[in-house]
């Protein structure tokens, strides 16, 4: 073994995984809800595609990281 070997740890402390999963997923689901409310209530002509895409992108970033940490905290190490 090399002398200068330093141990590698996970980029985020493992004890934070459940909390992170919960917070990110809750926020992601709120943004998702607003996305679908907008899609369902605004009439076809008035909807702006950009707004829909941006809401979708924000929601998917939060849901993506949230589900990643959910997987990690439940023991599915991806």
């Amino acid at each position, binding site marked *: 073994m090399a002398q200068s070997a330093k141990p590698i740890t996970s980029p985020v402390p493992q004890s934070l995984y459940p909390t992170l999963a919960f917070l990110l997923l809750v926020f992601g689901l709120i943004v998702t809800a607003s996305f679908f409310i907008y899609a369902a209530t605004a009439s076809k002509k008035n909807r702006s595609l950009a707004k829909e895409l941006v809401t979708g992108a924000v929601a998917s970033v939060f849901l993506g990281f949230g589900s990643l940490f959910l997987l990690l905290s439940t*023991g599915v*190490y991806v």
Partner: protein
Amino acid sequence: MGLGTKMKVDLCIIFVSIALLSSPVFSDLIISKVDRRIDLTSHIVRITSTIKVENEGNEPVSDFVVAFPDKQSKHLAFLSANHNEGKGKKKSHGASLPVKSVQSEGMPKSLTSYSISLLKKLVKGESLTLEVLAVFAHFLKPFPEEVSQGDFQLVVFQDSAYYLSPYAVRVQTVIVKLPDARVESYTKLENSKAQGSEIKYGPYENQSPFSYSPIVVHFEYNKPYAVAQKLVREIEISHWGNVQITEHYNLVHGGAVLKGEFSRLDHQMTSHTKGASAFSRLLAKLPPRAHSVYFRDEIGNISTSNLRSDLKKTELEIEPRYPLLGGWKTFFTFGYGLPLKDYLFEAEEKRFVDISFGSPIDELVVDELVVKVVLPEGSSDLSVSVPFSVEQLEETKLSHLDISGRPVVVLRKTNAVPEHNQHFQVYYKFNCLSLLREPLMLISGFFFLFVACIAYSHADFSISKSSASYLAKLQWDEVLSIIQQLENIINRCLTIHEKLEASLSELSRTGNVQACKAARKAADSLLKELSKELKPLLTTLQSSPQAAQIFPKVEELVAKERELQERLITKHSIVVDCYEKKVSGREIENRVAPHQQKITALKHEVDDLLEYMDEI
């Protein structure tokens, strides 16, 4: 083997030995003393030889050759040699010396020889002590080969009373250590005696090279004769903080085969006194801080297991579904997670895994051991360093959230014994950005879902584009969109009204008439713009036949809003006027009162109408 051929081979050995005696290759060295301890307490046979070597020739010698007959060498699983410096109890073991298989010229064909490279050359007259450990698997042969459930298991061990060596040996002894004192028989030579669970041969003096005197020990062996025909260990590295180890065992009882039928009742009642060769428990010594341990087979979880853990170790006691009798097989899997920081390190821009090679189960022979190290996706430049020879290949494995698959280093070793439980290293390069692959996969997955929703809600799925109902629907959509825009405008008007009201209350507080006037001006222009926007919407709505029913309501809403607006503006002007003329507060209230009543009523009406519109 017929007697004739055996004699031929023996004669051959003798001739070769005689030939060798005259050759200078081996005769330079002399073994002045050798003590061998043969440990038969486990089915994995360990022979430790403490050899004192002297150089009597003129040439310095750098290699020492140990030889095993073919009968033994095919069972040889592990061979290591150490310099043994110091005497008595103060023995110090240096690093193990390099050992390599050699095919020396002039050696008998039936011998396999290994050459040990000495640390420094042995010059004339000097001596040194070596400690050679040879570990054999499948070397204890059950005899009889079949026993019934109640019988004890007897095994046979064969070796030579003399140390088989290409060098002459001056003094030698052999001690055979047995599991207990129950010995069926052993070869009695001169100077041999059994004492408790030990049998001692020797000392024998002045034996020529390649001396051989067979000994056979037949004794009772009732410990687990556990052999894994195949073991696949999968070590999966996740940079998110875990090393997951999964081990698949194909276990067999390698001892005497069960004869007749198995009686569970007899086994339950007499397993402590008779037929103890059956085993039902195995102990696995897992590393400390192992977590999420499981034990299962094809059917599912096996609940008969115990886990004990403390700071230094984790012990898993596993009990397969049925006791294993001679020749019986079982299959099971167990797995555990380990913290990443104990096993993954970084040095010189490369990361490496440093983890133990063999099975954690006690005293287990593995016929075929396959170790797979699954590295995270995006690892490159793999290299492996294992302290003994293994077969090595690479493959890829598709696991959670992978695109191209994870690189896997596969190491294959036959005849693995607990001595192979040494740490090995797998080096690889890894870019930290590759860590974001998995979250990006998830994010893009969710994003595609949203895009699909957007596409679905925007797409038009009607088949007949000219039918009346379809056209009606289109028109109705248009009406809805106009109504929404209308509502939007009215709402904006209402906020402007609120602002006006706010400016009035601000006026009553500070008495700043100029600020109030400015607010009024801004509100006026905004309201004008909004009413301009409102006009075209109303005309389209009027022309649309679909809106015929709602149009009166819409008109009413617009009219009420306009009235509300006018009233509010009148009220505003009156108040501002009064302030300028410095009329008393009470007077202002009196003047405003009728307007105020109307405004409150109108506000209610407008709100009701807006609610009605929302419900369309």
